[in-house]
């Protein structure tokens, strides 16, 4: 590996080239194809809600907080006009719009069909079971606000 900063002799260069091609060939084609397909998710029009809080990231760096936060994983997504708070319980995902208001939530898995759940008059919704693959939530309030969360993996 030292050849990077050394002078590359022909044999070194050829050996490095062999290694580079082998590294690429070691990657299964389906893995690469999945990456290419992900581009279908670009250019989404809805207002994006960014992940602004994740309790699991808290505990990773601050073990002292774990007693209070470990039992329930909590996530918060924030967009300019709507905040979505999520709590992961044993068998379901509980959410609420803030400010509280009714609407619908479309659960969009990266690799499957979407489902829709209602948000009640105070903006609460339940997703059951918890999606096992990456998904995002397209949240629409009856007032016309729409916010799309970043990808969530639980």
């Amino acid at each position, binding site marked *: 590996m030292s050849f990077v900063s*050394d*002078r590359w002799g022909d044999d070194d*260069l050829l050996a*490095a080239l062999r290694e580079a091609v082998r590294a690429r060939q070691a990657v299964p084609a389906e893995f690469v194809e999945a*990456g*290419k397909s992900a*581009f279908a998710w*670009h250019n989404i029009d809805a207002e*994006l809600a960014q992940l602004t809080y994740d309790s699991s990231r808290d505990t990773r760096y601050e073990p002292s907080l774990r007693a209070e936060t470990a039992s329930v994983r909590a996530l918060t997504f924030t967009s300019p006009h709507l905040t979505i708070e999520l709590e992961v319980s044993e068998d379901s995902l509980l959410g609420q719009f803030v400010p509280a208001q009714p609407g619908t939530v479309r659960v969009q898995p990266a690799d499957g069909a979407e489902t829709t759940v209602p948000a009640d008059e105070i903006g609460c919704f339940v997703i059951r079971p918890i999606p096992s693959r*990456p998904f995002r939530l397209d949240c629409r309030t009856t007032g016309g606000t729409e916010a799309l969360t970043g990808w969530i993996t639980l």
Partner: protein
Amino acid sequence: MREDLSVTALVTRVGEGDQEAWNEIIERYAPLVWSICLRYQLDRQDIDDVGQSVWLLLVEHIGSIREAAALPGWLATTTKHECLRVLRAGRRQEYPGLPPEEQLPGDPAAVTVEQELIEAERDAALRAALAELPDRCRELLTMLISDPPPAYAQISATLGIAVGSIGPTRARCLGRLRQSPHLAGFLADGVEGVEVSGTGR
């Protein structure tokens, strides 16, 4: 005029919705994501899970990566985080009664992720340089690095080059490879400082 295939140009094109540029980025850096997953000893299903998350995060964030050259580093860091997430989730299922701190695996692979990044960037640069060589050179070098390497007689028959000129052609093609802009960053030290840097070997 060849297309500009620098990372910066690719990222710009992706921002304009260019699927081809996106594919090129995936082709180039999938080995990086893959090799980091192997460092964390994930099984195939978990690797696919990590890959899926990393690519989706990349779709989302590629527009906001200010310095395109930072893309490989961003991918390495994101992949590492996703590997740790998957490992934690697996341990939670296996030992539901564990207190949370026990769910956090140590990170023995952390040090080597940096090494994977360096190697993956170098490998990607080499592959990009190879891909841009004239056909004849690319064919010859590809044959020379295949495993097992074919006899010169076979190379001669396949490519229609006299056996005696394979050696000189090889040298000339490697010379062209060295001049590839993709390799500029990696070869910079070797041009002037031959004697100084060469003593370490």
